[in-house]
């Protein structure tokens, strides 16, 4: 008789069972979770061609970036929700401990007036920039072809909100301290939008993120945001601004920037692992390098423009550009 065999219980999910290796918690809860990638002709269990289906077929399924098995991607940090909160709760205890301690010592009162003016110019408007990064990562989360990529993007979205939160907090603190002291108009908590929209220091970065956000092919979006915009922000703003802060007696801001760079390092680890996996498929290198040729100059110009406004930071733009380039080189590009 041709009776099919009776399926026996397995030690793990059937899609992981073939490997004969005990799966980690990370693999159990993170792998192969997108069902919309199962049928390329119809992402949703609805009409195959109505506008949202077209969006996914165009911007995800038809991306020039190809891989036979996107679900093979693994985050090198194997981050899961449970450990993310443990990690970031600890990090936030550290940051709010700093904010508490520096406030208690009267840190802001000891800042030089010239530096305080710089803060309103080159620091507090960054909340718009960080929010743009948050929006970009949320796009990557919903468009990535594998749940392991989406999860990394989710934690990156939350990290960006974290940076925005620190900036909003410090903006409010500076506004409180310097209220009525000649910062009106361009002042803390009131002037940031105008600076972000018009000041030359920010226009390169704004152009970069606006264009990156409006790029909807998931692969090109990843290149624009994770390989160009984020490294530009990290090198010019977090590292460059952090260094300028250190040189101007603003230890608090320097430490805040360093704390955020810890997140950025984690983003770079998974981004690097994903690029490595992409490069395993022969056709992807020209695609990635074509996009980089388009985006990296925008990133370089953005770093140059911003860094030129950093006080006491000689050739910060050149250093940032080199560092961003070196990062891309280190991951095989």
């Amino acid at each position: 008789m041709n009776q099919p065999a009776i399926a026996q219980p397995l030690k793990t999910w059937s899609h992981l069972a073939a490997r004969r290796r005990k799966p980690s918690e990370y693999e159990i809860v993170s792998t192969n979770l997108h069902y919309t990638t199962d049928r390329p002709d119809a992402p949703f269990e609805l009409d195959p061609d109505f506008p949202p289906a077209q969006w996914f077929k165009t911007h995800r399924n038809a991306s020039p970036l190809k891989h036979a098995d996107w679900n093979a991607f693994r985050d090198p940090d194997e981050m899961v929700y449970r450990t993310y909160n443990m990690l970031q709760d600890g990090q936030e205890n550290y940051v709010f401990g700093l904010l508490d301690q520096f406030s208690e010592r009267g840190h802001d009162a000891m800042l030089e007036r010239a530096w305080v003016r710089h803060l309103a110019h080159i620091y507090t408007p960054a909340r718009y920039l960080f929010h743009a990064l948050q929006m970009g990562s949320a796009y990557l989360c919903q468009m990535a072809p594998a749940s392991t990529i989406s999860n990394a993007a989710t934690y990156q979205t939350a990290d960006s909100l974290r940076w925005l939160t620190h900036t909003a907090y410090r903006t409010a603190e500076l506004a409180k301290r310097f209220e009525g002291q000649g910062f009106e108009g361009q002042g803390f908590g009131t002037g940031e939008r105008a600076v972000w929209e018009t000041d030359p220091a920010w226009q390169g970065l704004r152009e970069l993120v606006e264009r990156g956000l409006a790029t909807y092919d998931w692969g090109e979006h990843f290149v624009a945001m994770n390989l160009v915009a984020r490294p530009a922000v990290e090198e010019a703003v977090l590292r460059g601004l952090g260094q300028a802060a250190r040189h101007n007696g603003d230890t608090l801001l320097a430490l805040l920037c360093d704390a955020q760079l810890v997140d950025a390092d984690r983003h770079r680890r998974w981004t690097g692992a994903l690029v490595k996996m992409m490069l395993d498929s022969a056709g992807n290198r020209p695609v990635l390098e074509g996009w980089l040729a388009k985006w990296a100059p925008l990133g370089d110009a953005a770093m140059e423009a911003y860094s030129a406004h950093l006080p006491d930071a000689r050739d910060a733009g050149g250093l940032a550009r080199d560092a961003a380039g070196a990062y891309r080189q280190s991951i095989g590009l």
Partner: protein
Amino acid sequence: MLQSKIRQRRMAVAFILLIERGDDGSSQIGAEKNDKPEEHAMALLDRSEWYDLARSTNWTPTFVTDEDLFPDVMTGAQGVPAEKWEVYDEPYKTSFPEYVSIQREKDAGAYSVKAALQRSRIFDDADPGWRSILKSHYGAIALGEYAAMSAEARMARFGRAPGMRNMATFGMMDENRHAQLQLFFPHEYCPKDRQFDWGHKAYHTNEWAAIAARHAFDDLFMARSATDIAVMLTFAFETGFTNMQFLGLAADAAEAGDYTFSSLISSIQTDESRHAQIGGPALQVLIANGRKAEAQKLVDVAIGRAWRIFCILTGPSMDYNTPLAHRKQSFKEFMQEWIVGQFERALIDLGLDLPWYWDKMIAEFDYQHHAYQMGLWFWRPTLWWNPAAGVTPDCRDWLEEKYPGWNDTFGKAWDVIIDNLAAGHPERTFPQTLPIVCNMSQIPICAVPGNRWNVKDYPLDYEGRLYHFNSEIDRWIFEQEPQRYRGHMTVVDRFLAGQIQPADLSGALAYMGLQPGESGDDAHGYAWVEAYRNRRMAAE
């Protein structure tokens, strides 16, 4: 606020460390007391002092157009311009440091309950009907929660209000959590029972209930714009309906002694009730800007779709699979309390009307899930869980009490099944024909059998194709936006189109991904028929 938060957090961390070290005695606790951080003057700002800045992040793009940045297919702002969304004010406020702290504590609770109960025998000792609830729940919900993460991400990217984008960022995280928790727990049961593999597998198959779940969730949120998602997923679905699956089942789980499941889904519900509040202020913006009709339609479509999916998922769970002794409320009572009682008020408070079909839906509370239960049990080989019949003599008394007339309608159909089983003809209790599947719900069309027969197809001819619907509500949903649904084929459409080969039950099961060992059968191995057999023998 935040000062005390930090103090609380330090204490919470100490507490968590204590839990993680295990239950090894009082000396540890004493040591923790001595470790208590010193009190000193805190100099942190209150959250309210900086919260508004964290949600003042809209700017005017100039390098790309506003339409480039917020394309309508993803944003769906119904023509309400960006500046009108600035008044959006989320009622439940939280911030990154509070979120990670609170969620860390919640997870420590959820996972520690699991660790403690891992050694208990609840799973082995539980009634098989209860295990079936776990299987259907995890299979239908885990990857649906993960899909909701994508939907939250759409609001985080394309929502027009910064407050909405920030809250949706926490919503993304929440749904990431719910998927991970509801994969981690059933995974523990995989070595005991192959059907638990479906906790992960169901959404990747063409099993018909999985198709129905995907169709509903894709329509409610996966294939919707940010604004639609705020209204349909967070307001209509989460405020209204997840309460049912999560609070209702949590109560039954506690009764059944399954504290793992009970505390798990209660913990999930605390996140849901936070991010469900994304929708209310979005509705207020729409209504204030003259878009009440559009908002009302989204709500009406969402409630109609949510009702169907919960009717088949939660209804049979509560009224048939939960062992009689552990039932807290009937499904109908639960619907009356949570949907009619509470949700109705939420709709009116926002200035919306009740959906036009409200009375028709309430009328369905009396019968639709009983019809679905018959379908589930009858088509049991096509399920990834073993449905409990739930029609012992005692159960029938309960059903008759909760749903007067049950014996005269559904009972009549069950009598035929029971007669065949009692007479030793189980083969006569399996389906021989194809059902007609609703082109909206993807569930077989069914209603009241027996002496009050009211089964009826609600057909629609659209562009030369004949569609079938379970009710006026399902057909009305189709008519609101036919291009969204028209090209989709039900599993029976596929069967009739020759896509499923061989064209018999074995071919259908293979198409659905069900092998022997996975395919469902009666939860209790028909042991419940014995009572009827004994009655008969006594009568003879």
